[in-house]
């Protein structure tokens, strides 16, 4: 909870800012402006311009991916008893991730991730927003904050919205939080592994540009009401929106969604599946200047058939993520693009062999791993350490807010800055900024920044 009421009006402005809130309506504006000014890091110092979030919806198991535990015993590692050495001395990762193993110098592993919650929706909320749940306020996800801080009101002029979700929104809570619908992700729908990638609203399969033009003309002729109400604000807005929409439908921007012109070998390397092609699409979006792309990769909630699923999904993740990192790097984009991969929690280290799970893993919020690369984050590092069986973090815990605040800082967004809430209050971007509330923290990821 970081929207706090100021108990009295005699409070100094500095304190009011610290509390992230302003008491009387009259005080609101100047304070907000002051906060805005105070809350902006020098954008020249920003190392990163964009984020690609590879969200492994459901929670991947840390033992099978980025934090293998070959000494924990069969009941923990199951069939994955041979972690693979990477090109960085001393770092090993899960044995299905052979391609990623060849480029560990490009990314760092966050093995100290923890928050302790085992519910999908609460855990997703914490990891995606970097906040703890509280009453009366739903914080925005990192993508929505970027959409606010680096989107249209901050000089972004791209026709493609600044926060894109491939292909569906995460959906466990309202991603835009209190920032409101304007900062929601644009969900593409469709499937980038199919041709054409039918991006909802942008690419209509089977309607030629010529027919689009004709329909547009018909609509223009029949929209008599807009002429009757000409001058009213809502009509002006709708008219402008229509123009913008057609610039996207009929203009250059749609080429960004055309994967068919990419070299066949590259498409193959990413993998001919939704995850692989989503990663390729994400690179194209970042190249086009989109600040935040979230890939919502589903299917990681493997209570049953865990190992069967992993032997399918991990090689896909391996191709997609390794090719993405290489591709970004080849194009000189990795320095300015944060690649962030992980889920809302990990999975129970001890395998449940009993029916009906028969070799499944449950939710585990006490310890899990994320991978982070690019955008100023150093590669080849491991941050945090878990116990012998991966059951708890034994050194350097990383809470979701430690991670998100670090990401914000790399992007030149001050985590101590504030955001406006709908009831006229201000809320800190990061709960770490709220000195009135004690919150567990391992600190920002200074080791790799």
């Amino acid at each position: 909870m970081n929207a706090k009421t100021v108990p009295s009006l005699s409070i100094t402005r500095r304190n009011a800012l610290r509390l992230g809130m302003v008491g009387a309506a009259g005080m609101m504006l100047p304070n907000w402006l002051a906060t805005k000014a105070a809350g902006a890091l020098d954008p020249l110092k920003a190392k990163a311009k964009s984020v690609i979030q590879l969200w492994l919806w459901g929670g991947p198991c840390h033992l099978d991916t980025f934090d293998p535990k070959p000494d924990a015993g069969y009941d923990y590692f199951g069939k994955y008893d041979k972690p693979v050495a990477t090109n960085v001395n001393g770092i090993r990762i899960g044995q299905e991730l052979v391609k990623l193993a060849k480029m560990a110098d490009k990314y760092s592993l966050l093995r100290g991730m923890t928050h302790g919650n085992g519910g999908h929706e609460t855990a997703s909320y914490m990891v995606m927003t970097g906040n703890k749940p509280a009453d009366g306020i739903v914080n925005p996800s990192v993508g929505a904050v970027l959409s606010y801080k680096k989107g249209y009101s901050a000089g972004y002029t791209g026709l493609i919205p600044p926060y894109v979700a491939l292909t569906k929104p995460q959906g466990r809570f309202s991603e835009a939080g209190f920032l409101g619908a304007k900062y929601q992700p644009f969900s593409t729908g469709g499937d980038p592994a199919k041709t054409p990638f039918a991006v909802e609203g942008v690419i209509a399969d089977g309607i030629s540009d010529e027919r689009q033009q004709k329909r547009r003309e018909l609509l223009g002729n029949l929209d008599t009401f807009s002429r009757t109400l000409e001058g009213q604000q809502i009509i002006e807005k709708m008219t402008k929106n229509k123009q913008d929409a057609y610039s996207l439908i009929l203009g250059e921007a749609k080429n960004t969604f055309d994967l068919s012109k990419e070299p066949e070998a590259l498409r193959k390397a990413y993998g001919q599946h939704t995850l692989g092609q989503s990663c390729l699409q994400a690179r194209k979006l970042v190249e086009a200047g989109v600040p935040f792309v979230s890939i919502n990769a589903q299917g990681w909630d493997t209570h049953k058939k865990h190992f069967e699923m992993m032997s399918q999904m991990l090689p896909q993740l391996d191709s997609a993520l390794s090719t993405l990192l290489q591709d970004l790097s080849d194009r000189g984009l990795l320095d300015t693009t944060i690649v962030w991969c992980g889920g809302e929690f990990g999975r129970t280290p001890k395998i449940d062999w009993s029916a009906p799970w028969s070799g499944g893993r449950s939710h585990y919020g006490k310890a899990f791993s994320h991978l982070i690369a690019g955008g100023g984050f150093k590669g080849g590092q491991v941050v945090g350490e878990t116990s012998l069986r991966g059951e708890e973090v034994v050194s350097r815990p990383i809470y979701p807010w430690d991670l998100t605040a670090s990401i914000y800082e790399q992007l030149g967004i001050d985590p101590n800055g504030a955001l406006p809430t709908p009831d006229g209050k201000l809320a800190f971007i990061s709960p770490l900024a709220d000195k009135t509330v004690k919150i567990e923290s391992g600190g920002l990821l200074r080791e790799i920044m």
Partner: protein
Amino acid sequence: MKQMLQVVLIASVFVALCGRGQAASVKRIDALVREKQTQTGFPPSDICSDSVFVRRAYIDVIGTLPTADEVRRFLSNRNLNKRAELIDELLQRPEFADYWALKWCDLLRVKSEFPSNLWPNAVQAYQYWVRDAFKHNMPYDQFARALLTTSGSNFRDAPVNFYRPFQERTPRKIFDTVALIFMGVRLDKFGWTEEQMLGMDAFFAKIAYKKTAEWKEEVVYSDPEKKMIHPVTKEEVRPTPLGGVPLNLDPFADPRIAFADWLVAPDNPWFAQNIVNRIWFWLMGQGIIHEADDIRPDNKPWSPELLAYLRKELVDNKYDLKHIYRLILNSDAYQYSSIMTPENSGDIAGFSHYRARRLDAEVLIDAICQITGTGEEYSSPIPEPFTYIPASQRTVLLADGSIKSQFLEMFGRPGRDNSLESDRNNSVSVFQTLHLLNSSHIQKKIMNGPRLRKLMTSCQGNPERVNLLYLEILSRMPAPQEQKIALDYMATAEGGSSAGFYDLAWALINTSEFILKH
């Protein structure tokens, strides 16, 4: 002149139909509104036409687009009091309860998952209860009392869910929500002292929760052992109504009952005022006090007299909410055209014209589904096995705010996270435009919808098809010029007049006239 005539006609209608009492009340509202218009210098727009009125009334009162038949029936009705008749008819429709339950479930934060965490069974029971209350026009004081004082199981005694959608179940958080919903007051803005608020918190200090053997069942009850302790003096705080003295309640009494007694009393300054102002806001798009949930001394009503009059009407009529709807809907202020005049185009806060605004997300998708004869598919991932809502069920009836769709999110359905009116966002965006213009979601409905196809095949000739499309989608007949444009398009369309017909339906759905209520 035309306007004068219409005013005279409508005035005479009321005398004929709704009895002198109600007609007099409507007249009084009209007089109070006109008085204020004169004062502010913004003369009203004309009274809207019948075809505008029928569409507006259906959408505002029952959240439903009228069908072509319903429009025709209304337009061909020669009765002078047909508007009042239609209002009465709509207030009796089952969709009235469906639509207003939706609004109330927004306020009550009805959703299964984070952050309300009500759980699906409780959501179903709760929404059913609210809907039932509107179906039977439960007097508003009884409605509030039930929500505030019920004890029992979240699955079996639905109103207890009022006390459940909190991440922190503290007396202050609860009072904060009670004040917002039933008094229209934001605690941090109104200016009550900490002592005053502690006295109010104490009414909610004995609320307790316990689990049962049934999974996710929870019992809400009053625990006599629980006390409100003053954070500084460490003494027990007794429940104290605002502006009153501490109450001497039996230690075994449930203080929530005393709270409800205080709240719904006829002389309570907040309770009735809040709801009449909200209903005015819901129907007009602007509260007499605006925002409707930010009542405080320095947020002045547009017309204190109008607000006081509506408040008195509610109290005098035994908290009959439909009475208030009826008065407002029959008033001139509700029936003005949305076309502004040069003289009133600067009227931001007043009621000189009807505010054109976008349809609610749920109403819009239901309207598109109705026209095309299609449904939406919703499902809930909890509890397993997944729940699939039948496609035949209208979206307005979707009880659970945790069940989502891309369309609903895009069109600003509230997150049901904070009980604020502003949680629902009816602004327009490029995403929305793209979706309506060019998504496969909408395109499939238009191309494959059985109702449109039937309309295409059952009509004799293109002119009839065009008329019917206009009636179905825009609730009016096309003007001759519009009909000509439509017929020319169909005659020359690539793929023949059938393809042209679907393009025409597409175009009408994308006009601002369809997307807005006006």
